[in-house]
């Protein structure tokens, strides 16, 4: 199935140079497992960072030339809508759960899904083609190592979680062989722009690192919870009762 990976304008936090976001490199890895020739799509200026995606497994890269300050969403939506109308329409659009370099709200895939009328699934860690043609089986990451396996009809948009398999190794020759096409942002799908509507009191300034809260240690054992020299059977009963009373595990009938 034809797959597109959306690439954002990530920067190295120290040097400020363009680079490929790790999450998007993982998305390329997932796409390469599904599709022989996955293509990348980037709307922005410059190709230094995103061209590394070719070395990680993309067959080609489409770049919509936009000034860095422009909202990439209408141009992306227009490009994908046009591609879906033509032959060899993309069936799957992959992206990271939050793009880097811009506003970083993680809303682009959701707005794109709304504009194009596609279903969206978040936090994929594994993807494979379904048994029925035109379906996709997505494993979503959940808390505590659980996975939710969802079968979805294509075409669809899927965002990738950081617990997905690590990206494929970078190959310089593959990056040189990859084909980069530049496009003009011809067609833009109009969207109500919420960014412009955001609060007038908004103030942008250099980032200041704020420490996270210290993790406090939990409860200490008081008198009733200290048992000196109980019989092993009694100790085992105390431990299991404590586990069940605090809802850690249930070892009863289930």
């Amino acid at each position, binding site marked *: 199935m034809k797959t597109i990976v959306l690439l954002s304008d990530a920067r190295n936090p120290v040097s400020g140079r363009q680079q490929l976001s790790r999450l998007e490199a993982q998305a390329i890895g997932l796409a390469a497992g599904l599709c022989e020739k996955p293509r990348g799509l980037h709307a922005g200026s410059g190709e230094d960072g995103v061209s590394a995606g070719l070395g990680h497994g993309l067959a080609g890269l489409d770049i919509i030339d936009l000034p860095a300050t422009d909202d990439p969403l209408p141009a992306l939506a227009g490009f994908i809508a046009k591609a879906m109308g033509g032959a060899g329409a993309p069936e799957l659009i992959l992206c990271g759960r939050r793009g880097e370099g811009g506003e970083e709200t993680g809303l682009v895939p959701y707005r794109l899904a709304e504009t194009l009328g596609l279903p969206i699934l978040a936090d994929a860690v594994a993807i494979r083609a379904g048994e029925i043609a035109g379906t996709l089986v997505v494993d979503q990451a959940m808390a505590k190592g659980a996975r939710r396996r969802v079968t979805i009809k294509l075409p669809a948009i899927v965002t990738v979680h950081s617990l997905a398999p690590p990206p494929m190794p970078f190959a310089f020759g593959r990056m040189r062989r990859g084909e980069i096409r530049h496009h003009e942002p011809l067609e833009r799908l109009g969207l109500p722009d919420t960014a412009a509507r*955001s609060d007038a009191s908004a103030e942008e300034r250099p980032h200041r690192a704020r420490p996270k809260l210290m993790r406090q240690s939990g409860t200490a054992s008081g008198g009733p919870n200290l048992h000196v020299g109980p019989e092993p059977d009694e100790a085992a009963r105390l431990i299991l009762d404590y586990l069940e009373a605090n809802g850690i595990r249930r070892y009863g009938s289930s």
Partner: protein
Amino acid sequence: MSRLRKDPRAERQERQVAAAGRRPRIDVGHREAKAASGRLRRDPWREWSASLVGESRRKRYDRSQRQMEHGNSARLTRARARDGVEATEISPGQPAVRVIDEPAFLVFAVITAAGGRLSRLDRQLLGAARLLADAGDGGGAAVAITAAFDPVTAKDLARSLGEAGADRVLSVPGDIHPSGTAAALRHHVEAFAPRHMLFAEDGDSADLARRLAVSLNEPLFAGVEHLTPRSAVRALRNGTREVALAPPLLMTLGEDRMKPYESGPCEARPLDIEVGPFGGDPAILSVEIIPGDPASLALSETDFVVSAGNGVSDFAAFGDLAAVLKATPGASRVVCDAGLMPRAAQVGASGTVLAADCYLALGISGAPQHLQGIAGCEHVIAVNTDLHAAMIERAGLAIVQDAQLVMPALVKLLAERQA
């Protein structure tokens, strides 16, 4: 305490007489000082009596910054602060549970409460909601919205929600597709028109926040790093810039950014509202949940770790115990250095720093570097032969016994219970 909090500076300002000259002149006879804020006075008597430990003749106080448990807060209202004086007499009219009958506005906090228990992040979200609800003149109500609120476990969950600072509880249907949950949330937003809405920047909550933002066509303030009643701050452009603005409608919050609520319990009154049936997503054909296998999970991802130290010598039995307890096996540095457990299992400053809920330490004395690794664990159980070990002091349940004897007893008891 039923009296209102005084603001001496405002009172002084009120009494000041406008007069020419450099010296301020005060009208001493002026008695009509108005209260600057609607907050009640704090009552040190109640706080001290709540931290009183034991009933011995010599008074012992526990003043650690510990979250108030339900038992404590109940004691807080019943305790005799002084001989012959009931606490309720010291502060008459103050209810044991904080009740907000007619809230001026609402603040929603969408929490997961997996398994009917509140996680750290859930408590922090409710703390943030409480902060925003008490902002300015106060009078707002924090509403916990959860899919886990079902009538069977409702009592326990409602109590812990109240302790975490929720005035109201709303439920959303949980076992439908995320688009259906988002539609139910949108229904609640339109019905109650909350002033703010907080989500976790994690898992399904983050997904819901974005679906709702698109559906309401509202901007989303994702990953708040710093939140006060007046401003919310988040990073953008690869963490090089930040944007600050008055707290907007939709916000998501990462872990360890806000303090949980720590005062007396709130009411957590369930709100009854008819939620129509929301259809699932037609594109989703099937959904199946695959539970995580604790044995193969990474230590940083799991919720329950059973760990072996120098007091354990039979590692085959330890492995069996971890399997039947459905826990992830871990080890101390000594054991990993000896090659008895893989290096990936090491817990501590130089191994894995855990995010688990529960930690069962078998034969571990608790070196400082090891205790750093379990600083985030809420429940710690220690089995050790040394009464004076640091791990025994840290543990919520401490058993002074040989771990080698307790392990087979545990396996036997588990087999009995599961039979």
